């Protein structure tokens, strides 16, 4: 029998491992054209050929754009969402604007931002910002609005008010919701950043994937896509670990996956 400690790992890894093995076997058996679908081992070989020297600068460029856009959106989203939750008037003003922006698929802003900023850093950072800001605003709004009245009343009766009430009672109480919004935002950030890089950029993983594709170097294209997917997955995992650590004071189980 497998030790109990390892069982969740076994459960989580069994089917991905089976899938990869099946993939390798199908390609080796010649059931699919290896040019159209390279096997996992061929992809690893291609990855070694590309090498860290070529890959790292592009990866860094992509991650930097995502980090800047996400960070700006996190700050802006929490501030605007809180303001809307605390002020009826702010909510009345911003809600219609946000609701109509919400309906546009965010990557459609890319051509507009190219018109404004040309090709480079800013159109991608801006589209990441827009895509990330909305979920953060919405979740912050709900988080702050749903803080139990009783908690606010007891804080008030202890003489806490104004800024202190916000920073030490309302904001911490809303953090679980806000972090869920930020996790969704992180997923959007990768999606629009890659889309943006495929459309306009001269650097970044998206650009690298696209140029290998256009050059017909498919094993390398698959290799860079795999790197990107692994990095995006690790980013999500890291964010969840941060959430669980940050919210360890909460009286409940771990935050689980499957939300976006």
């Amino acid at each position, binding site marked *: 029998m497998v030790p109990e400690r390892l069982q969740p790992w076994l459960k989580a890894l069994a089917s991905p491992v*089976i899938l990869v093995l099946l993939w390798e076997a199908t390609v080796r058996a010649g059931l699919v054209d290896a040019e159209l679908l390279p096997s996992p081992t061929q992809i690893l070989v291609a990855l070694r050929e590309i090498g860290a020297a070529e890959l790292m600068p592009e990866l860094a460029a992509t991650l930097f754009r995502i980090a800047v856009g996400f960070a700006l959106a996190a700050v802006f989203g929490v501030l605007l969402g809180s303001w809307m939750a605390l002020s009826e008037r702010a909510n009345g003003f911003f809600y219609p604007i946000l609701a*109509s922006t919400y*309906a546009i*698929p965010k990557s459609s802003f890319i051509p507009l931002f190219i*018109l404004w900023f040309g090709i480079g850093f800013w159109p991608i950072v801006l589209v990441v910002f827009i895509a990330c800001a909305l979920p953060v605003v919405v979740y912050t709004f709900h988080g702050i609005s749903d803080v139990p009245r009783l908690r606010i009343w007891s804080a008030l009766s202890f003489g806490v008010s104004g800024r202190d009430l916000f920073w030490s009672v309302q904001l911490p109480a809303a953090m679980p919701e806000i972090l869920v919004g930020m996790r969704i935002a992180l997923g959007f950030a*990768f999606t629009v950043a890659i889309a943006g890089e495929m459309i306009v950029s001269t650097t970044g993983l998206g650009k690298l*994937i696209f140029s290998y594709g256009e050059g017909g170097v498919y094993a390398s294209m698959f290799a860079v896509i795999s790197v990107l997917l692994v990095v995006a997955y690790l980013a999500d995992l890291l964010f969840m670990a941060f959430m669980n650590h940050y919210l360890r004071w909460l009286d409940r189980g771990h935050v689980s996956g499957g939300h976006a």
Partner: protein
Amino acid sequence: MNMTARLRGAFAASYSLILVCLLWEAVAGAGLIREVFLPRLSVVLERLFAMIADGSLIEPIAVSIARSAAGLAIAVVVGSILGFLSARSRIVDLLVSPLLSIGQPLPKVALIPILILWLGVYSSSKVALVFITCVFPIAISVQAAACAVPKILLWSSRSLGASEFDVIRSVLLPASLAGLMSGLRVALPLALLATFTAEMIGGGGGLGAALMYSQRLFDTPTVYAYLLVMLLMGIGLDQLFLRLRHRLLRWDEEK
């Protein structure tokens, strides 16, 4: 409610949008921003109406909607089956759940070049991307809803003499339908996002490709007109969805 009260309500709900529109018109009209960046709103609307009048909007809209709908339909069928089965069977759950939780947060647009390689730049690769994007949220929420059926409901329906088939038909499927609806609400905007993005990157017709084309020509009024069309489509689809949900699930209204 009388007319003035209704008008006042409508104004209160949208005055900020009106303000933004007026500001847009004024700033662009005063020449504070170059026209290639921000044409006047009236110019954009004029272009939009011209595009409606000469019928050039119909084809890209129809193409994009057909692609989104086809991908979404396949995702609904496959996602519901996967979600439902993995809620009912431990083996399916063991095989499917890890793949769902790994696949869900991944940026599927990265697969566009692969899909183009396999399926070409026209509709099939777009439909495939929509399917891959939407199947995860649908499967996950169907699975969650089917798992969340209270045990007591199952026990009591069985003790009242329901057969296994009855239990599935009258308890589990309605519960999964509620899950399917909440999955759809997430998947619907994602379907449009996937379609437009694939069209922007790979070309091959549709609104996304038309938008990119007008940007390359620096035809800014058309760019804004397309963005307005996409905005209206997003709002329209969401409203359509809410009506559908209301009809199907009157017993389970969301707050």
